[in-house]
């Protein structure tokens, strides 16, 4: 056809390239801004005391979030004890045993479970553990995070196991090794890196969860000595400080948020370098 029409079409094509590029920039802007403000407002409050001391009372400056940082790691440890074995073994079933119809339903259910709002997990575990045990506890906090990890770990484990070449299994079986030993000693070991990655990403995800901890771990201004006591956690502390009216606490909230974000991003970026796997693909 005629040249002007062609020019208009080319122009439109370039215009769309530019506008989609602008959208991509818009998408990454909040991350940059959040990071900038966290460093600007939080960095100055981070010192040794921040990691080792208890929060100070209102009006006293200084103090730290030592108990919240320790609490987060204690909660994550408990979560791993629940989420990892159940998730990994479930993933083994999906990859190694399941029939395609049953697998379809399990995957479907796992994806739905992933979409359940975390706040509803919180009230479920409240009814399940806090009410019978007559009090908020670190244990309940660990359980809620652990349960949330299960579908995440299960799905990534399944994916990673399917990357293990079938020849490995056949070779082992041909040598007379029983199937379960083949799975444990050959398949799982081969895929270990990917499984660890999946677990770390799941931990990074639940590490920032606040809503399910509100009515389970509850938070604590002091060190928790028993798992049956309420325990502080970094995200909870950030939330409580952020909605408080005190400037000192706001500063602490920024510092806590910076520490939490660095922890989460460190895991996320770390696994990226760690997991260029032996099949040349990046496992997610």
């Amino acid at each position, binding site marked *: 056809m005629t040249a002007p029409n062609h020019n208009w079409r080319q122009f439109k094509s370039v215009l769309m390239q530019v506008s989609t590029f602008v959208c991509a920039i818009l998408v990454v802007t909040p991350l940059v801004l959040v990071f900038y403000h966290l460093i600007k407002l939080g960095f100055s409050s981070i010192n040794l005391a921040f990691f080792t001391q208890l929060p100070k009372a209102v009006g006293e400056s200084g103090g730290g979030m030592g108990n919240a940082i320790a609490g987060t790691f204690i909660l994550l440890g408990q979560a791993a004890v629940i989420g990892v074995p159940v998730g990994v073994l479930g993933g083994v*079933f999906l990859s190694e045993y399941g029939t395609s119809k049953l697998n379809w339903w399990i995957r479907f259910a796992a994806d739905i479970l992933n979409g359940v709002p975390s706040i509803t997990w919180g009230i479920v575990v409240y009814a399940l553990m806090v009410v019978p045990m007559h009090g908020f506890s670190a244990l309940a906090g660990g359980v809620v995070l652990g349960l949330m990890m299960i579908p995440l770990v299960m799905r990534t484990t399944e994916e990673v196991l399917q990357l293990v070449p079938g020849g490995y299994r056949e070779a082992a079986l041909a040598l007379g090794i029983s199937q379960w030993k083949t799975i444990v000693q050959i398949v799982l070991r081969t895929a270990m890196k990917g499984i660890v990655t999946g677990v770390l990403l799941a931990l990074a995800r639940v590490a920032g969860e606040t809503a399910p901890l509100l009515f389970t771990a509850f938070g604590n201004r002091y060190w928790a000595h028993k798992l049956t006591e309420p325990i502080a956690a970094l995200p909870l502390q950030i939330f409580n400080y952020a909605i408080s009216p005190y400037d000192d606490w706001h500063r602490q909230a920024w510092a806590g948020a910076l520490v939490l974000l660095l922890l989460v991003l460190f895991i996320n970026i770390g696994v990226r370098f760690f997991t260029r796997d032996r099949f040349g693909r990046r496992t997610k």
Partner: protein
Amino acid sequence: MPDHAENHFGDRAFKWLTLLMALSIFVLIALIGYELAVGSKLSLQKFGWHFLVSSNWDPVNDEFGALPFIFGTLVSSAIALVIAVPISIATAVYLTELAPQWLRQPLIMFIELLAAVPSVILGLWGIFVMVPFLRDHFFPLLQKYLGFLPIFKGPIYGVSMMAGGIIVAIMIIPIITSVSREILRSVPGLQREAAYALGATRWEVTRIAVLSYAKKGLFGAVILGLGRALGETMAVTMVIGNSPQIVKSLFAPGYTLASVIANEFSEATGDTYLSALFEIGLVLLGVTIIVNAAAQLLLKTFAGPGVKPQH
């Protein structure tokens, strides 16, 4: 021989163990539904269906209706979708079709990192950075030029339905973008080549061959984003203002299903109050399960087993 028998037993035991673990998914879903139903029994009996249409939330007189929260959840999610859908899909298109190769991986990494930012941190940033900015600069601007619309009328507080919607948009953009990207990547190259062969420009190839082919999958990605938006809790709670009212203005504070649980659950005195909050949880669970199931079905039927929905 004994060894053989033992292995046989080991095989069966291991298989059953893994089956049990895999089935725990169904147990967990049933458990959530059951606990919420038991918890909300009192409220279900007392208010019945009226709970969903009453806007009377009065803990002092033990009267509870969820309508303001349902309204707030729907409105903030709608705002989030209006903002997030075009931006996310455009970004996914840019990443798969139009961006230069060297820029793709860094951008993808940034978007995945944004998805990993905890909700409470976005909320903190929302309270102290985003809301003041919106209040002092963006909202007055909107009101000046679009103030004739009822949704942009009224006093500006900062914390508002609109602020809640924007923060939710920031949270669901990475999800919609990365699922859309997977969808677009699964469009066969032949589709594109055929369009190029007909003399189409780059954008025409994208529009005719890629986007119209991927329509169903992209719809699935959007619905998945909606599912997340409905259940988003902390960031919204921190910027939406937490006031149970139904008003036209988007500059007025609102309240959502998830945030009323977050704010009031640990202070709820009285069995009916607690039970009403459980029922709100039940409503939230029901809605998100339906929405997520729809999203998964759309994505699964579009993509077949090759493409996995992301989280």
